[in-house]
């Protein structure tokens, strides 16, 4: 057993119509050994040989590395029309090789190299994909509207227990992070005002900046972005894993609409909670703006709030709340749709979650621009 360690060696020679491969040394996973290319080249040159045979030195130590090697050689030899003679191999090795040769390779199963696509083809494929995506979105929206119709007629297959759980997870559980972010955003807006307004001696106007900034824009936007990252991604991941687990299929086969059962509670929960969260974010943001105004710029509290009250009106507040409702629907839609589109596998669920966040944030910013434009035209 304890013989000298020896490097793996292979020699080959032609002997009439026989091509003889001689093996010796240690052929182990833990050591180094030659790969099959040498012998394969030799075999290609040996035009006269028809049979490949092997001689394994009796002090050879081997594991499946040698089997893999011989397997590759035999495979190649048979490709040349040679026959392999396994006579000279130890029994255990032959047995290993036989397991490998039991199931032949299926025709055409191996993947070829990827064919380079032309630019035109690429453009075409991308357009088709975009079109498919658009129809999918339209279908999804339509189904959601139908589901809402069912809900109002009291016929939706919705589990209210789920709804309350989701409602909690998108509201109470989100309060700390919403508070933190809106507190910081309020401060940032006030700092921005501090730097610019001081130059004009108009420190009191920081109240307008904070009031407008938080109520019309940042309150809703920041809450929307937090919810896209927090809740939209969670929806996509949940629904994606449900899909991997065939839970969606199970719903469908019972005749339960996945839209009503899964999407509707999430959509409703965000639609209801986004305005409330935004209201909360507004309060925190304005308070933090006031702290900076009072602490850094010396604008007293009563002045701050009085100034704000003269310029900023209920319309601004309502605009922000309206935006919040829209963002809520967008985030829920992006999350649920991406989740339902998810492929199977751990990767696919991750991709679905990422795409839901990207889609959610993009939609929020886009919708915000549209609403602002409309508001400017209408003079709100």
């Amino acid at each position, binding site marked *: 057993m304890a013989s000298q360690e020896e490097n793996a060696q292979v020699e080959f020679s032609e002997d009439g119509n026989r091509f003889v491969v001689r093996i010796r040394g240690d052929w182990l996973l833990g*050591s180094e050994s030659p790969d099959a290319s040498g012998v394969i080249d030799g075999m290609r040159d040996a035009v006269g040989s028809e049979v490949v045979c092997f001689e394994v030195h009796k002090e050879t130590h081997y594991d499946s590395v040698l089997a893999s090697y011989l397997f590759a050689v035999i495979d190649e030899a048979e490709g040349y029309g040679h026959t392999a003679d396994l006579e000279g191999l130890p029994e255990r090795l032959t*047995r290993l090789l036989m*397991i490998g040769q039991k199931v032949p390779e299926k025709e055409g199963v191996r993947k070829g190299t990827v064919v380079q696509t032309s630019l035109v083809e690429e453009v075409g494929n991308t357009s088709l994909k975009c079109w498919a995506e658009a129809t999918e979105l339209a279908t999804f929206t339509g189904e959601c509207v139908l589901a809402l119709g069912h809900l109002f007629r009291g016929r939706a297959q919705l589990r209210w227990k789920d709804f309350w759980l989701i409602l909690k997870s998108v509201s109470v559980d989100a309060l700390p992070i919403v508070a933190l972010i809106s507190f910081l955003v309020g401060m940032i807006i006030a700092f921005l005002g501090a730097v610019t307004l001081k130059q004009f001696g108009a420190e009191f106007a920081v109240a307008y900046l904070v009031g407008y900034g938080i109520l019309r824009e940042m309150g809703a936007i920041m809450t929307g972005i937090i919810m896209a990252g927090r809740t939209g991604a969670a929806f996509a991941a949940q629904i994606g894993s449900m899909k991997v687990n065939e839970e969606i299929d199970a719903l469908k086969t019972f005749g339960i609409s996945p839209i009503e059962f899964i999407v509707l509670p999430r959509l409703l929960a965000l639609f209801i909670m986004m305005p409330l969260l935004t209201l909360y974010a507004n309060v925190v943001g304005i308070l933090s703006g006031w702290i900076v105004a009072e602490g850094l710029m010396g604008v007293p509290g009563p002045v701050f709030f009085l100034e704000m009250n003269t310029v900023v009106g209920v319309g601004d507040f309502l605009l922000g709340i309206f935006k919040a409702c829209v963002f809520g629907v967008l985030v829920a839609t992006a999350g649920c749709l991406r989740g339902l589109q998810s492929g199977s596998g751990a990767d696919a669920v991750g991709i679905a979650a990422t795409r839901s966040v990207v889609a959610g944030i993009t939609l929020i910013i886009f919708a915000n621009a549209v609403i602002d434009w409309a508001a400017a035209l209408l003079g709100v």
Partner: protein
Amino acid sequence: MNETSKIRVEGLTMAFGDVVLQRDLNFEVKTGEVMVIMGGSGCGKSTLLRHLLGLLEPASGKIYYGDQCFTEGGLDERRAILRRCGVLYQGGALWSSMTVGENIALPLKEFTSLSERKIREVVEFKLAMVGLRGFEDYYPAEISGGMKKRAGLARAIALDPEILFFDEPSAGLDPVSSRHLDETILELKQSLGATIVIVTHELPSIFTVADRAIFLDGKERRMVGYGTPQELLAHPPTEAVKAFLTRNYTERIDV
């Protein structure tokens, strides 16, 4: 110390919190034998496997690999022991971001100094051994459940393990594939000289492949049977074992 014992379990108690799953398990797996862990659903078969692999910590008791105590070993000792083991998980547990070939190549890259080309040779052979020639470039999502399982087996035997663990190898396979897998297991035992531990509730598998078997009773929460399947069938130690091995459902049993 018994030289031929590969795995020895002494007084192992498995529990989740206060809920005891199995109490005081004692058995050993001899070198080169196929040991089947059987029992009804929820009796702790797979949990026992997870204890043997160090994925769960025992509530009490010890597990030895050869002379080394696994449960008391440090991280490095445990890793060294586990490197001699191969595991086939229930669903294959292939890493989904890698192709089948890369899945098998990963342990080879990590733990051997073989060249790229050699690794490819070994990967090809291992895939051929499980009847999946030419499937290197497929992602796990692109192949069927049975194929995933076979690819998982190819990964499990990548490093020529001394001990192979199988968790429900035939679950989800058709009878022919399942039979083929049983044959492959036996061939692996003979050609690699591996010791094999199988968790299963498939009767044909138990009788074809098992040298010895243990039976875990989920209701009594202890091991009630230990012996060759034939012995257990001839002299079933409890009604539950008898019912299990003869598929006798006439009496109400709680396993």
